[in-house]
């Protein structure tokens, strides 16, 4: 993988730090009129998710990280791995539990997810912004109640628990925003 000089630094550049692929979130060039130049950066480690601030000497080189985002459809899990497929090439790839992390509860068969690959291996799995899931269990709501009164918890087919309006019932399919984990609407029939 190529090395990047600090003057190539910009938001979105992927570099290696402490053996972990990282994303540069912010980069600021700092140069006192009469002094040494530095690049002050904010960096997200892509595996641990940790965010840190780090200063580089300007002109310094840093190893690039071979990180690639791919759009793959979720197929199934064998209990250990989560299998995804490229819908155009039909090539399949397996992500481990660590890569899927908490997003396990938003995986819906055939949904296209963003899989971040580092040296060809999945390190993170990002579900679509909205997924549709069936409610497997929720308290029957009071009749005549409408949205906006605080709602009630509902367990979905993947095990995820979200707050839903009182009028939504077990067996219904709802649309959930995976970024906030909030109920969006009933699914369109």
């Amino acid at each position, binding site marked *: 993988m190529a090395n990047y000089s*600090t*003057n190539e630094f910009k938001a979105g550049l992927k570099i290696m730090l402490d053996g972990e692929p990282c994303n540069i979130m912010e980069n*600021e*060039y*700092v*140069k*006192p*009129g*009469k*002094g*040494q*130049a*530095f690049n*002050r950066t904010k960096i997200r480690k892509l595996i641990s998710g940790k965010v*840190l*601030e*780090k*200063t*580089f*000497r*300007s002109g310094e080189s840093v190893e690039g990280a071979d990180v690639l985002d791919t759009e793959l459809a979720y197929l199934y899990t064998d209990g250990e791995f989560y299998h995804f497929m490229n819908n155009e090439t039909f090539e399949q790839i397996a992500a481990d539990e660590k890569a899927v992390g908490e997003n396990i509860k938003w995986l819906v068969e055939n949904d296209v997810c963003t899989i971040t690959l580092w040296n060809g291996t999945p390190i993170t799995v990002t579900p679509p912004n909205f997924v549709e899931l069936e409610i497997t269990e929720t308290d029957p709501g009071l009749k005549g109640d409408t949205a906006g009164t605080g709602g009630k918890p509902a367990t979905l087919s993947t095990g995820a628990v979200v707050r839903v309006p009182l009028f939504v019932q077990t067996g219904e399919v709802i649309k959930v925003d995976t970024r906030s984990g909030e109920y969006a609407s009933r699914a369109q029939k």
Partner: protein
Amino acid sequence: MAACLFNITWLLSAVRQDFVCMNWQPTTDHSQRMARAQLMRSIREFFYQRDVLEVETPLLSRGTVTDLHLSAFTCEFNFDDSGQSLPLYLQTSPEYAMKRLLCAQSGPIYQLCKAFRHESAGRWHNPEFTMLEWYRPGFDHGRLMHEVDELLQETLHTAPADRLAYQQAMQTYAGLDPLTASHTALVDKLPILNINIDNASELSYDSLLQLIFSTVVEPAIGQDKPCFIYSFPASQAALARINTTDPKVADRFEVYFKGAELANGFFELASPHEQRERFKQDNALRSEAGYPQAPVDEHLLSALEAGLPDCAGVALGVDRLLMLKTGASHIRQVLNFGIDRA
């Protein structure tokens, strides 16, 4: 296949068109251009009222700055009388040429000009920028700070500025004494100040001070009104005199406002001997760092031999001043065409 080729050609021409269409345009709007014109006018008015003469000096020079952390653009002049091709440097500031005028009894002078620094672009930086530089015979740095403050009050409508000695600023905001702390003490201080940099012990003493100052002190000072920092460590004297009562500090000041380093001024070094020594020391540091030697400006040294009147001088970044005046967050917003569109 033919359709495919057509598509690729179309795509390429679309890309080219995109480049042509987007990048010719200025990154300023009309109100920004008006603000610049107005600012230039009020700067000229300021000096007209004070009987300071506007001058022009060449942007190209045979000699250049020796400072370890300044790099000049070089170009070649192929029509010199000698018949040889002559390397010329674009000025990093008009300081040397303006001092030659002072040595020729010019009296108080100012210049609005372009200066060039061969370094990265950034939020506060463009390699080509506009500088305001002025010199006041008979002033020391204290009196010049007062005049800089007046200029800021007139152009930015700021309240009278704060003044803080470098040592005091570092003690207050970083909890260290920049005049007595050891190199190790500075390195050990970095993690406490949340500064994360590899191999910090390899940085020079002054680089460590600058790193700490820019990370910790700069964001804490000059937020509501400008702040003058004066009496820099003698090792960062640049072209300022060493203070006669405290040789640990130099008669140098800087002005900070809302995170911008706005101006740098000196009670000007006049001794040709000491000036030559500083150039030599700089070039020795350049060798150590593996940088090319900077040809010393012999015209300046000859002028200093003839005699520089006691004077103070300051250089102020006009684009940064304009950013502060218009609330721009990136220098690009006040430049018609930044380096990426030059």
